[in-house]
């Protein structure tokens, strides 16, 4: 058991690759339905969004459990968000468009839902390349400021999901709810801590 806890990080690292393995098997066995490219594309996007939600869940879990040992897991999940988002983008560019830039540019320009995807990806990309301890030290205070953009990335991703659909909104609604809960938890903490710090101020000083 203690071995497992020690190695938990490595185990997590490997487990997070399983969706990719299953997806690869579905490609090989032609198990992706009538529109396999779209299915592949969407499933990679789904996993990116799932990892984004998991990454966002780490802070609330730390706050609730008062256990601060999850920082490196947050980094790992964040990097997997970046990893699956990059594959999602690569499938769009290469598998779906075969790098036909004329088609790609028109598609991007004319599709507002893609603008949000691009916006979210730029953020996830910047956070991905600045996730190391080295970058953290180098950026100092700005690191935290930069990494708060993940909140905007999560909102943009959910709208990106919503806006491309004609019918079934159940799945993006599910993610919208998760993201809403995770973000409102932060607002709640921020608000209550402000109240507490107000109470901490000695009475006399309030009169001044």
């Amino acid at each position: 058991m203690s071995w497992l806890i020690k190695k938990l990080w490595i185990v997590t690292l490997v487990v997070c690759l399983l969706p990719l393995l299953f997806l690869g098997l579905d490609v090989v066995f032609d198990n992706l339905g009538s529109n396999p490219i779209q299915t592949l594309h969407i499933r990679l996007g789904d996993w990116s969004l799932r990892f984004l939600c998991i990454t966002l869940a780490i802070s609330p879990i730390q706050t609730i459990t008062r256990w601060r040992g999850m920082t490196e897991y947050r980094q790992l999940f964040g990097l997997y968000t970046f990893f699956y988002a990059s594959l999602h983008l690569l499938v769009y560019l290469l598998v779906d468009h075969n790098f036909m830039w004329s088609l790609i540019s028109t598609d991007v320009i004319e599709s507002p839902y893609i603008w949000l995807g691009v916006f979210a990806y730029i953020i996830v990309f910047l956070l991905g390349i600045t996730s190391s301890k080295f970058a953290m030290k180098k950026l100092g205070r700005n690191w935290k400021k930069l990494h708060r953009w993940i909140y905007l990335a999560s909102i943009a991703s959910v709208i990106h999901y919503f806006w491309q659909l004609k019918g079934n909104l159940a799945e993006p609604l599910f993610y919208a709810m998760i993201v809403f809960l995770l973000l409102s938890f932060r607002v709640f903490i921020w608000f209550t801590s402000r109240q507490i710090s107000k109470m901490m101020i000695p009475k006399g000083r309030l009169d001044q």
Partner: protein
Amino acid sequence: MIIKTKKDIPSSEITPPEIFKERRKFIQMLGLTLAGANIPSAFAGENKVNFANLIKSTTPDDSLKPTPAELVKNYTNYYEFTFNKDDATKLAQSMVIDPWSVEISGEVEKPATYHLEAILNKQTLEERIYRFRCVEGWSMVVPWVGFSLANLLKMAKPLSTAQFVKFTTIQQPETMPNQRDKKMLDFPYVEGLRIDEAMHPLTMLAVGMYGETLPKQNGAPLRLVVPWKYGFKSIKAIVKIELLKNPPLTTWNQSAPQEYGFYANVNPSVPHPRWSQNSERLLGSGFFTSRRQTELFNGYSEQVASLYQNMDLRHFF
């Protein structure tokens, strides 16, 4: 009404006897029985009809390679059943399509309700290979089996006041879960065409595809096919056709008027408000092959562009 098309599309008027026989077989396979006749349900038996001798209509797309049938049968938007494209294949099988009749009414000399087999008795079934482009950005090539809508409308003798045609899908909440739960769209599904669009020789009613009776998920027993418009115009399981003075309120137009217009002509230079319509994924095309450049009127410009000569296609999307 004269429809000007630059290239004439010849459609055969004569039915060779072997095709007539095939047609009889086809009608039987549809499970449609003559009034009073007691033929056991044809659906119980072999459902495949060999259409080797079917008239191949000379459409502009004779060179088109049909999309593999399995892909077409398992990728349908049938919101009465489900919002997922692969689930309708199973869910639609509970639909009751026998017997089936179609009401033709409104601005016509002879309003009537026809049994489907009575309609088919008077029609020459043809195979027509058409491109099919969905508003969602995917497309396929389908060999439909059917006949020109104009032939059916002529049976009812439209009055000169008939300017539009309204089509209505069957209301069958006992088999259609989303009709029962009133989910998302205002059912029954309604679509419409301008009279000249409806009378156009490319506009057809389909009762089959790939040489077989139409699968339920693909719109059995009778669906519209308008190849130059987005797929949602091609309404399924039609029970009512009304000729009207004014344009009908169509389902998607009612649901999101800024996104889905009455015309819904395929047009790569008029994007949907949320996504581009410039390209499409042709089902069956492999990984690492680019999406296809979408064509104006889905490639049927030569035949239909004259219908929209002085219209601003951005405004009338």
